[in-house]
């Protein structure tokens, strides 16, 4: 249960950064925090204390293995997170070229 609480706390810290920070780069760091929290949660869900790597051989019988699926999911999620972060940074850079600022309070050409 504790792992859920801590991971969701980290998630909320990231959400707080996204909602309150005015700097584009800090907002992107907020997203990075959320991504870490979810990936950490996945890794911890699959964890078993004192368990073995999930490789079935003649010596080890098929019980008390670490759950391998969350690890595979985390790999995929990391790649997707990499993609989104890269696109975000690219657009933040382009915004900086146009507006000469990272401050979202000054980036408001769109009305309403």
């Amino acid at each position, binding site marked *: 249960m504790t792992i859920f609480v801590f991971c969701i706390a980290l998630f909320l810290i990231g959400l707080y950064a996204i909602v309150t920070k005015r700097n584009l780069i800090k907002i992107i760091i907020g997203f990075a925090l*959320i991504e870490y929290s*979810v990936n950490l949660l996945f890794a911890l*869900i699959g964890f078993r204390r004192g368990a073995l790597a999930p490789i079935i051989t003649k010596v080890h019988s098929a019980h008390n293995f670490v759950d391998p699926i*969350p690890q595979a*999911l985390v790999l995929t999620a990391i790649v997707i997170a990499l*993609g989104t972060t890269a696109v975000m940074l690219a*657009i933040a850079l382009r915004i900086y070229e146009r*507006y000469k600022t990272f401050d979202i309070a000054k980036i*408001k050409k*769109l009305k309403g």
Partner: protein
Amino acid sequence: MSIIPLYFAIPLITAFAIPLLGKISKTLVWIVATVVSFVLFILALYGIALTQETSMIVYRMGNWPPPLGIVMAFDSFSAFMVLVISIIVFSGCFFSLRYIGHFTGQWKFYTLYMLITAGMMGIAITGDLFNMFVFLEIAAISSYCLVAFGVDAEELEASFKYMVMGEIGGLTFLLAIALLYAKTSTLNLADISNTISSIGMTPFFWTILGMLLFAFSIKAALVPFHTWLPDAHPAAPAPVSSLLSGIFIKVLGIYTTARIVFNIFGLNRANAPVFFNILIGIGLLSIAWAGLSALNQKDYKRLLGYSTVSQIGYIMVGFGIGNYYGVAGAIFYILAHALGKGLLFLTSGSVVHRTGTRDLDKLAGLGEAMSTTAWSYRFGALSLIGLPPLVGFFAKLFIVLGAIKAGLLWLAIIAIGLSVLTLSYLLKIENSVFMKKGKMADIKKAPFSMRIAMVFLVILVLLTGLGFQTLMDFLIGPAANALLRGVEYAQLVFGSFSLNF
């Protein structure tokens, strides 16, 4: 050999072949993209023919049986979504030939366009929760790039705003998947459904359902999470606006919500009345709030953006009603709105292409100068308002019928009453752009390829309206039944397999 994986494999392969072809010729890229989207349209029709015989076609990736491997579960509702996606993708692609002409790096546009198609197709046919997330992110990341495609200051700003909201939604979805996996130890939708029916709806599952509803409401731009849409959809190039407003938000937001609520959590109006009333509430709020905001807009595409939020509300109300007519009406509305709004955004594209502005105060007198565009606008708008015999009328009719059958007479009256909003904001464009007398310097007709794309959609608006009974029998009715059969979905996916662990 099953055709199911081709729906996302073909656009995915095309997306990565286009950069190679882009070096040879710009027109070749367009031809390839258009031909591929037409092939998808034919395959979608074939898919509908297939679902008439068997209600569920299951494709096992790598031949791993469920729940071990990823499965593609193709039922009538998926077939319906695939068909609507392919129609809008085809017309948008055809329209792009001239519209994209003034951008540099055109092959990038078609690559992203095909990736978005692959992502949407994948969501519509997948039977695996994490796989759904991956396809959702493929579609979402491509859409962020396409919104920023013009790299003007406003477009970049809109794209960043959209990306912040969209990623909060996407990551909440991922968190919900993680929590669901912790409880059920499976990612297969059918298997999750079985587990939930055996455990029952505990508070934990309600929390997860709340998180999923939050994530999908952002993706579907329901009030109060709609703020990104009126910025992002107008900022994109017109064919992309047509794609995003026409079908994108429905696949990412509405389809996923409906599938998960009805088939996975097995909810219906009888066992979860409060939840369905919440759906109706969100829907009504979206219709009213966004409809009123649309009345104040001075920008052609921005007005249409608010209109999209408002119309999505009707679809949510239809699902919230939750009986056969309500759900069928919502599904019909997905088709009607995809055709109608797709068409309206295409007309905005040809107006912007010829005049270079989308300010309603500056545009005038295009009714004669661009008659095809004007008549296309009129058909699309009348269909959305709900004039018989166009398709929008039957969609609204079924929602209202559903409300009356469910004993919600007040809802039927409000739903009809709020169409006045639709009428008034769509008339605003008609008045200032097409009816108002005025002379804009040497406006030519829209280019031939654009007119073809618009006329294609006009014909579909007319045909689907006139042939609504046939549609109801072969397309909408089976799709509504696929949703309403609830957790039976799981048995159909597993079919004859039973694996015991």
